């Protein structure tokens, strides 16, 4: 018997009990579908995380204070002035630019209109580190910092909310942060960002960091430093050099938390891989359970067809022929389920990535894995029923009613 004949025999046998066949195929389908969806959604999540983080740039290094007690806090805050960023740039050759960043929630007002914004006190280099383009007017310049000028760059959605289509460049905005209220002149508007909310919090406006700490905030310190390395491959070196510089400077190796986007990206990737693997194992369990369903179906088929087995043996079927017949049936069952599960997994992963607006990551490796697995399960769970069928005594089998 060649393989085509064996498979067609298996299909005919399976068709003789459609419901039972359908149920065990369904079991495999769900198992395979789950495995493929989980792997694909996991890949999709990884791609999404990578996209979000690389939007920020993989050659970015951040320096944040590590407050452990009020003593260290006040000491660190004293250190964290705009000048410290310049020192970092000089001390660490791998860095191409550094910006001190101070941040505060503020209300912007023009006439009777107000808008909430995250006010970012930054240096001109900030726009190179976190790519920020101006659609109108200009970005902050060095001169703004040296004279602590009260100039502001608005995000496009704040600009349109406060000025409603009028060119805001050159107009005045009142900025309220905490107790202080100061007039600022709009010098530029940034380009619209896709993920910027149309209203409410989360929108940004930029002013010189020196203006922020000297004229708006009660304290003189900044909240963090962002640095950019010359290339992504310099990032690790930059992190190490920064740590050394800062621990010497503060006489405390743990005073600052120095981290790179690359390290964050790697960590997030690791987390998603762990979560995906865990979910895959869980989905894999359902695949194994579906194997038990196949085994059950086959054992029933063997019991029902005992006489057929006897007849086939009397006509010259060897034990191997009988074993092959039932094994092929088992593999046909599980691969039918595998194919259906592939379609289910494809649909599932597409639906998830669409719903969450993640990049679709239907993974062909997961298809190969799931198909291979379902075939293996057919083989593994078919061996026992098939061997049981093949080892039947022909006389006893023929006598079976």
């Amino acid at each position: 018997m060649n393989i085509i004949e064996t498979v067609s025999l298996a299909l005919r046998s399976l068709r003789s009990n459609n419901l039972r066949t359908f149920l065990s195929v369904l079991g495999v389908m769900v198992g395979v579908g789950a495995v493929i969806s989980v792997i694909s959604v996991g890949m999709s999540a990884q791609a999404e995380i990578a996209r979000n983080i690389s939007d920020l740039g993989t050659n970015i290094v951040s320096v944040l204070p590590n407050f452990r007690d009020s003593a260290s806090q006040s000491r660190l805050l004293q250190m964290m002035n705009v000048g410290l960023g310049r020192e970092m740039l000089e001390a660490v050759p791998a860095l191409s630019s550094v910006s001190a960043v101070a941040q505060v929630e503020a209300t912007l007002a023009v006439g009777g209109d107000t808008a909430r914004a995250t006010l970012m006190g930054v240096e001109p280099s900030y726009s190179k580190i976190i790519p920020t383009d101006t659609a109108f007017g200009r970005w902050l310049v060095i001169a703004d910092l040296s004279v602590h000028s009260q100039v502001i760059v608005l995000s496009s959605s704040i600009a349109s909310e406060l000025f409603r289509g009028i060119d805001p460049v050159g107009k005045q905005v009142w900025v309220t942060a905490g107790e202080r209220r100061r007039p600022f002149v709009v010098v530029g508007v940034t380009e619209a960002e896709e993920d910027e909310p149309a209203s409410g919090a989360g929108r940004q406006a930029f002013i010189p960091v020196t203006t922020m700490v000297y004229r708006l905030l009660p304290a003189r310190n900044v909240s963090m430093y962002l640095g950019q390395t010359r290339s992504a491959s310099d990032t690790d070196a930059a992190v190490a050099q920064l740590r050394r510089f800062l621990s010497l400077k503060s006489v405390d190796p743990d005073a600052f938390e120095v981290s790179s986007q690359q390290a964050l990206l790697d960590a997030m990737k690791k987390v998603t891989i762990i979560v995906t693997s865990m979910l895959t194992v869980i989905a894999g369990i359902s695949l194994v359970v579906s194997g038990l369903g196949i085994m059950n179906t086959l054992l029933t088929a063997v019991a029902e067809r005992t006489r057929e087995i006897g007849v086939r043996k009397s006509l010259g079927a060897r034990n191997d022929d009988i074993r092959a017949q039932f094994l092929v049936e088992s593999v046909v069952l599980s691969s039918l389920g595998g194919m259906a599960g592939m379609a289910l997994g494809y649909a599932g992963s597409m639906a998830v990535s669409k719903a969450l607006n993640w990049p679709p990551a239907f993974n062909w490796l997961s298809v190969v894995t799931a198909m291979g697995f379902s075939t293996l399960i057919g083989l593994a769970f078919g061996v026992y029923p098939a061997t049981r069928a093949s080892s039947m005594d022909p006389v006893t089998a023929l006598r079976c009613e």
Partner: protein
Amino acid sequence: MLKLERIVKDYDAGDIHVRALGGIDLHVTRGDYLAIMGPSGSGKSTLMHIMGCLDRPTSGSYLLNGRDVSRMNDAALARIRNREIGFVFQQFNLLPRETLQANVEVPLMYAGLGARQRHRMSADALRRMGILDRAHHRPSEVSGGQRQRAAIARALVNSPSLVLADEPTGNLDSRTGREILDILDSLNSEGVTVIVVTHDSEVGRRARRIINLKDGLIDSVEAAADEHH
């Protein structure tokens, strides 16, 4: 052609020890026509199973066409059943999901023949049994007589040297039964060795020799004086 010497078959069912065959000596020549008769429990089914290579004797030797088959392994016995022996059963034992032609092709499939050759040989066998027009019917769609004819076609399709028929008329009405016996007679006249196991004396009369079994031993051998021979 068949040479059985001191064939003993014991069954152990737990503590109960049953001797189904107590030492059978039997010689069957090519072209012979034998009926094995006896009441139920006399061991005739066991004897048929051993002659049909479905079972191995506990002791004794069985030479089939000069080869000792009593000690062969499962695969070798399967090959012997496939090439040398054609079975005809009381229950017909056709595969219900397959057409008559597909049923006839089963032994050819296990013999490893290709589809075209199988198709030709099975059509020949069905034609010989006069049921070629039923080739594409399933067993449930044809009469009992036609089923048994299909079963005989299947038994003959590999040109075996021995046809073993176990109560071949047991599930048929008497007229159809006679037709089936006529077919066996004509096969025998063409040189096929036929062994029929039956408790029906009318069936037995067709044979050249009747072996009467009793309690696992040959009780008597009669030469049938039948009008056919």
